[in-house]
């Protein structure tokens, strides 16, 4: 497994915390009517993207679902501009034209943010195709929700990726529910990571509440893909504390179930490890907490003060 430095622990803790504080603030702005439409929060799933990102090359590409805020933060994108996209302002990553579900940063090889369940899977496979076509050593990480694992195009993409040995790492974020339908009510066969078996794609299941398990699996899978062996599937078992979107009270699951997952909170796990290993003191952690809260507060401030797009922007960016 990848050897973690002391700074890695701090980095992981900071990013996971930043995602959580960002999402909480987004929920607040949504409540104030500053954010509209659909808004899907990543709270509870922070260890997934942060763990995966500890193992990658910066020229790798990534594509994900509409639950994308955390993915952008973990990639080091500016929370101010992410929040400004959520508020639909001109400083947003998509200049206010995409919103929560459709955010992109080409310069950071971040290809969205896709609103259609499953559609990002062939797209990510095509980005991986491009890496191979261009003779690059990079891979495309393609995130898939558990809900999309019953969607036909996902299997078409698996087939193509295996057939053409494309450098794509599929990461199933299994947060147990596709909107309000639990995985066992949607999927015949609960081992989603085995769904590539028919195509010869290896898969494995990982505890997604524990960032260290995620790193270990991602490191191994990333190497496999980067060495030209074709695609690989990681199924990360995770949990979203919030409903599917802002207007979902999540009545389809019990409070006990939620509380149970909160016992294995991904951020607390890293924090405990930092204290145990004496990488930082409680005071130092507190400082990170305060700084993070401040940074996100500033992001919200920025996002609510950034101007709305100009009327003339309605007609731009339709064609290049």
């Amino acid at each position, binding site marked *: 497994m990848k050897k973690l430095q002391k700074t890695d622990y701090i980095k992981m803790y900071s990013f996971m915390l930043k995602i959580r504080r960002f999402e909480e603030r987004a929920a607040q702005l949504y*409540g104030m009517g500053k954010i509209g439409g659909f808004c899907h929060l990543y709270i509870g799933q922070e260890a997934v993207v942060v763990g995966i990102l500890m193992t990658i090359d910066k020229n790798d590409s990534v594509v994900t679902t509409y639950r994308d805020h955390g993915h952008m933060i973990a990639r080091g994108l500016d929370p101010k501009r992410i929040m400004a996209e959520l508020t639909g302002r001109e400083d947003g990553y998509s200049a206010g034209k995409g919103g929560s579900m459709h955010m992109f*940063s080409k310069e950071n090889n971040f290809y969205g943010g896709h609103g259609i369940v499953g559609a990002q899977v062939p797209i990510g*496979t095509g980005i991986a195709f491009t890496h191979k076509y261009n003779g690059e050593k990079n891979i495309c990480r393609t995130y898939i929700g558990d809900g999309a694992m019953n969607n036909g195009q996902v299997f078409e993409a698996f087939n193509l990726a295996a057939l053409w040995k494309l450098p794509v790492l599929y990461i199933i974020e299994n947060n147990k529910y596709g909107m309000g339908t639990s995985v066992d009510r949607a999927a015949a066969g609960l081992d989603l990571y085995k769904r590539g078996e028919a195509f010869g794609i290896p898969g494995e299941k990982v505890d997604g509440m524990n960032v260290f398990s995620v790193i270990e699996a991602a490191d191994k899978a990333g190497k496999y893909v980067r060495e030209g062996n074709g695609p690989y599937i990681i199924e990360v078992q995770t949990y979203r504390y919030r409903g599917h979107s802002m207007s979902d009270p999540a009545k389809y699951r019990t409070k006990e179930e939620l509380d149970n997952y909160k016992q294995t909170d991904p951020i607390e796990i890293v924090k405990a490890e930092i204290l145990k290993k004496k990488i930082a003191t409680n005071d130092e952690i507190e400082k990170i907490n305060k700084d993070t809260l401040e940074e996100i507060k500033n992001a919200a401030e920025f996002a609510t003060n950034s101007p709305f797009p100009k009327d003339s922007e309605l007609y731009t960016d339709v064609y290049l």
Partner: protein
Amino acid sequence: MSTEILMPALSPTMTEGNLSKWLIKKGDTVKAGDLIAEIETDKATMEVEAVDEGVVLDLLFKEGEANIPVNKAIAIIGDPNEKVEVKKEAPVEKIIEEKKIEINIETKIENKKDDIIDTPSPKIEEDTNLSSAEITMRQALRDTMAEEMRKDNKVFILGEEVAEYQGAYKVTQDLLQEFGKERVLDTPISEHGFTGLAVGAAFKGLRPILEFMTFNFSMQAIDQIINSAAKTLYMSGGQINCPIVFRGPNGAAAQVAAQHSQDFSSWYSQVPGLKVIAPSTPYNAKGLLRSAISDPNPVIFLENEILYGLKGPVNSDVNFSIPIGKANIEKEGKDLTIVTYSIMLQKSKEAALRLKEEYNLDAEIIDLQTLRPLDTETILNSVKKTNRLITVEESWPFGSVGSEIANIVQRDAFDYLDSPVIKVNSADVPMPYSLSLEKLYLPQVDDIINAAKKVSYIK
């Protein structure tokens, strides 16, 4: 500093809520993420979390209080040593006002001025670089793809049977031999998957040419074409374009019946973000396909199986192109205008000959070449001259390209019209199999002549 906790909007439609339960009390210390209250909305009862940190200084509503407007302060947290100041005015109105921003721009679907292409479509009659030999449309398409693949390594082709089989309709003949299997890829019968893959490749900078064996199968992939290829430039605020050509035969072939004989011209022409081209001759197929491959946007290139064998001269300059968005005045005339595209150009030309011979009507024929962006200027100028218009196309009648042209002409050239616009379309039914019914379904020369007589008030 103290912070107000406001009644949150917990759904896009919520305007007020009921405070079902407090989960905190005065004097409690709350941290970001702590649950503070249960709020009943128009849809459900939801828990609310704290975002800021501090000591609960005051709860402004009691449990059970109802109809509390969104954005009204319900609690105050902060430093207990600080004086509390409750702002009387809740910022509700302000927010509603912000949401009411109205954009008073007239809905326009034509090109804006800046987009109008000034280069006219080249005229075959005036082309000094015309090949002496006549080639088929199939070969014109093939040659253009090969020429562009030689110029740019990023251009590649994928589709069903495009490589080893040499193309289901032989449009990709010998491309595998010249460019190899890395750039000429046979796909499985998996339109949804390989279309999404090609769109992803285009986002990442390649220039795919995707062949649909026929456009009927593009319906399997239409989500990727519209939701991904056409919209991402806009949704990304101009960051990610999609330089891809979707090409293949469109419309009826011969007796392949309902599922294999459909015209998609108006379907795709409706979508902002796509360009749509429908060539009618080897000459314009060559010039237009080159423009399509070089274009940085997604282009739908609608060929026609019956036209693949049509022979004609071409301009063999490897840089010859016809601009997207320019119609060609195929034949000038003064008595009426026939606007058409793709295979219906041939039938319109036949009809024009007979109209001259039998009724002494001199028809002007406009071959659209590009359906989106539509060359409205050429259409309007012609109507202003002839005062009569018929549209001829193979698509179903409801909401067709002709319907949009009729709309534009009645709006912008109403005073010039001497008769209502008449559309000639296929029958409004699924394509039948039987030869006799198929003929009845498709627009025929007689249908065009009858429409021309009608707009000319000839019995």
